């Protein structure tokens, strides 16, 4: 079975380490916050100017001056700090964030990513995504392996306008966890019950399959 959005978030959460500063993008990445292991301490960075993002507020604690990068009302944890957008992106661009998780429309074998516009259809803007992918070393992209018609989103070369060139090394889809190196996707883990053949068939870019591909443990 392909992973649900929650299971994808759960798998990403296994990559969190004690003491990490983490930026979670909008969508599936946001759900990762629900699966942070209780025995580790991580601080969530929200690029609109908050380090130490907490849960959503209760009704009586809503504060219009305290939102996350998705413009949702949030809270701040003990030890949090607030700062300007320039300071926020100094952290990001300067490589101080330990793990960045974000979504994508397409990704390719060179590690390029497209996530901010579909010409003629949709333009939302890149927000902080271009800075995040350029600034971070440790990035996990979460996305669907293929679209609803079965067309692969893991390509030999991105067709949509790029968010970043050659900057992604790991991608988690609903079917598999892969590394990107030497101009190919390398299969690392497969979703429980998903066959290597299905992953092969839905990966348009070159896919390297090792002899043994373990199932993910969730």
């Amino acid at each position, binding site marked *: 079975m392909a992973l649900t959005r929650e299971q994808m978030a759960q798998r990403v959460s296994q990559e969190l380490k004690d003491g990490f500063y983490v930026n979670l993008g909008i969508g599936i990445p946001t759900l990762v916050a629900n699966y942070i292991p209780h025995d580790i301490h991580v601080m969530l960075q929200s*690029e609109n100017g908050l380090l130490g993002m907490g849960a959503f507020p*209760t009704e009586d604690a809503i504060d*219009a001056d305290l939102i996350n990068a998705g*413009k949702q009302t949030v809270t701040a944890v003990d030890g949090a700090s607030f700062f*300007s957008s320039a300071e926020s*992106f100094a952290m990001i661009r300067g490589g101080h964030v330990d793990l960045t998780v974000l979504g994508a429309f397409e990704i390719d074998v060179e590690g390029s990513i497209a996530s901010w516009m579909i010409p003629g259809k949709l333009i939302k803007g890149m927000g*902080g*995504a271009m800075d995040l992918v350029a*600034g971070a070393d440790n990035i996990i992209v979460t996305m669907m392996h293929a679209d609803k018609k079965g067309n692969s989103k893991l390509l030999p070369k991105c067709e949509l306008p790029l968010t970043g060139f050659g900057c992604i090394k790991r991608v988690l889809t609903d079917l598999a966890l892969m590394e990107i190196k030497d101009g190919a996707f390398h299969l690392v883990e497969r979703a429980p019950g998903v066959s290597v053949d299905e992953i092969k068939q839905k990966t348009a870019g070159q896919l390297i399959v090792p002899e043994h591909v373990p199932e993910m443990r969730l």
Partner: protein
Amino acid sequence: MAGLNKVVTSYEEAMAGLSDNMTIMVGGFGLCGIPEGLIAQMVSMGTKGLTAISNNAGVDDFGLGLLLKHRQIETMIASYVGENATFEKQMLSGELNVILTPQGTLAEKIRAGGAGIPAFFTATGFGTPIAEGKETREIEGRHYVLEPALTADFALVRAWKSDTMGNLVFRKTAANFNPMMATAGKITVVEAEHIVEPGELDPDHIHTPGIYVNRIIQGVFEKRIEQRTVQAAV
């Protein structure tokens, strides 16, 4: 002493000198931390042909969305424009010229503008459409794009507290682009939630020193929330 008391008592005074085709910077992230009254004043002035620099464009009926609705903005420099139908329509029809700029690059362009740095190299956007037509350089094996700084005729800033000399304190994530914009306007106008006397703010806790600020007005804010998300009370 009066020379450093920058408080004005009307929005007309606060925005005096704004004219057609000027460039404005407007603080805020979404609807958080926007100078609501200064935006309303620009709507009532009817100023046209503006170039607006702001992370977002508000929503259809609030924030900078109001200036869009009245077709007062000709060029918009922003990082994210989703969730605003008017914006999307005007952009797709070509009526509005939009320069999408990565958020961190936008923040740094403004910071640089205020700090007298004409341009800077950043890895952000290399190899993407953002870098097209821009100078690039390889420095120690990485590729960078040259991004010019931004300044504006007017910088419109919302602060939590301002003393009468324009020393500013921001609150929580309402700071966002406001501190940099305060430094990058030829005329910086602050709309403050609270105006206090000099000496009332701890100099150690001032985010923006008053030297950057030209005018201060006491604001009244609706503080509309774009995405109201809550958890059940425990």
